[in-house]
């Protein structure tokens, strides 16, 4: 899966879980500081990514990812393994 597809699908998931407009999501957006994810929503995001990409992520590693660009990178690596 190429990076642009991962990026588009990651943004779609974020917009849905956090109930925000996709236009508000930047590559540098921090999930907590910029997008307002609380701890519960952070866990929900991890679950939603797993479902969207049909992958399994180590939760602690996934929660350590702080911004959108890094999430795309992180998920891309797992998907293309």
């Amino acid at each position: 899966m190429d990076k642009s597809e991962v990026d588009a699908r990651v943004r779609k998931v974020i917009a849905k879980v956090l109930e925000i407009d996709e236009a508000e999501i930047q590559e540098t957006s921090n999930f907590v500081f910029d997008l307002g994810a609380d701890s519960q929503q952070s866990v929900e995001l991890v679950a939603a990514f797993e479902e969207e990409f049909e992958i399994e992520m180590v939760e602690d590693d996934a929660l350590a990812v702080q911004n959108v660009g890094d999430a795309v990178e992180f998920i891309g690596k797992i998907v293309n393994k």
Partner: protein
Amino acid sequence: MTKNIDGIFNPSSVAVVGATRTPGTVPHDIFMNILHSGYKGVVYPVCPRVKALGGVRTYKYIIDIPDPVELAVLVFPSEVCHLAMEQCGQKGVKSCIIISAGFKEVGEKGLERERRVKEIADRYGISIVGPNCLGAINTDPKVCLNASFARKMPAEGSIGFVSQSGALCTAVLDYARGKHIGFSKFVSFGNKMDIDEVDLLYYLGDDPATKVILLYLEEIRDGRGLLGAARSVIDNTGKPILAIKSGRTKEGASAAASHTGSLAGSDEVTDAIFRQAGIMRCRTVEELFNNAIALAYQPRPKSNRVAIITNAGGPGVMAADASIDAGLELAEFSDKTAEALEGSLPKTANTKNPVDVIGDARSDRYHAAIGATLEDEAVAGAMVILTPQSMTDIDDIAREVVATARQHPGKPVYSSFMGEADVASGIDILQRSHIPHYILPESMATAFAASRAFEQRLGVEHVPSEPFADVDRAAAEAVIEKARSEGRTHIGEVEATKVLAAYGLPTLPARLATTADDAAAAAAEIGFPVAMKISSPDVIHKFDVGGVVLDIEDEAAAREAFEHIVSSVKKARLEAKLDGVNVQRMAPPGREVILGLKRDPVFGPVVMFGLGGTFVEVFRDVAFRAAPLGRRDAADMIRETKSYPILTGVRGSAPRDVEALEECLMRLAQLATDLPAVAELDMNPVMVGERGSGAAVADARIMLVKEGGDA
């Protein structure tokens, strides 16, 4: 940089950075607490993704707020606090409370986060309370700020509470609310990244709304700062400081190589320094508040003579016993008072102190007894006891206690309505009217004594020490330097004596002998009788290895003593390196005391005094003070020991030269501040002669701080 603490307690505007919509979470509840506490300023929720919170418009970033923000309360997770702090700086915020946990208390990663946030704050000149804290509260009606996640805003009052533990704060607030105790300021400072207890002491010292300051501490980092701040606040403002210091450990004593080191455990030193500073140390929250309400609500007793008024004999006697134990006296009433009591109480009543108004007493008898005793010039204050009997009009008596106390505003009135259910409404009346109430008469007596002790402490002027001009610091440093250059951290008696002599301490003539003949010659030079002691860096307790012979009267005995000492020590400590035998003029007879110093990791150089000799660690009758010492400090620490009466002369023995001891302590304290290389020092024993004849150091040793570390 001057810390902006007023911005924490009196901000005109507050932004809660990282607020959320989820009730029951810290980021949500803190915003709601500020909103609903009646805060007189403007509050802004900074809350990405949410349009409004509690009906208040939110902002995505603090920099989006159109008006100035004085205080930022950060409730974001620790991972993003640096981003929020950067924006706080850009916004011009000067005060910040970081509530979030996940900093140095969780380990290396957290410590790194803390450093990062502090670096940004320093760059922008932002003062910080926290992180990992409950927050801050100001009950001043002009401010009404509850920037915390405590469940309820406390009542307005005159007690300032400063705590390292946030969780304890919530328990304290609940405890205090049940007893109608109010606060002026309330703050938990958590990891004290920036603002600490020292800063807060100075702030509350200057705060007109605060009359009494309470501290809860788990870790003291700046012991000298705390000592200075407490002394300054108490001496300059007359505000009492009460403290609980938890986390007592023995780590400071475990590795000690001297008597002083083993006796000066961290908790003993903390105890002593608190006493030196005038801080009232309490062991429990209950004791803390028992004393605090006495000091906050009632005038301090002008003497230790108390009147006890009771409707039950037993509790009256218990209160009398507790009063005497606490150092109080039962006032002896004047004839006028006795007449007044006899005229208003039944014949069966006891009109002497404790006054027993008898079990069937109603409020009129309490009124008469409290009023008459408080009128008496010999009475400094009253302790009122009630037990609930079938005819006791409890609430009326409570109101009478309040009214009579108000008629005598210069004298304290405390109360103990014993029981629980029947007396509850009476206690409520007393507590709401700021008459300190205690479940037990013993606690009441202890609180009275504590208030009296503070009043007495205020009357004592703290005179700073004047350094002695006759010391030869260079000579002492030369001895230390020589030991250092030879890679030694232990300085034995012979060299230690030179260091002490350089500081004007009363050492005895002595010389090291390396052979039996040399010992005989040395003894003859010094003059008989002499004492002979092993000199070895490996032997600390010389008596234990047969390394001491006393009262040697001639040269033959000196030779014999030399051989005996060397063979005994070799037998007991095969591996010990022997420098020789120290031949010293025999100390004149006197009482044996110990003087010592230790460099405490928190409080710096600490001086010790106690009953000396070989059993010093058994009796542990010692007192400590931080150096330098004034004459008053030295006098206090000598008088603080249980064995002090031995020095003043008991059972026909002559009084000892306590003034000479005081000077020794002051000189030792000067040595401690001048010579940071000295980690521990023992002078044991010091023989104290009769008054006017001075003292003599009979034995001494010094441990040096290891190069680049501790001793």
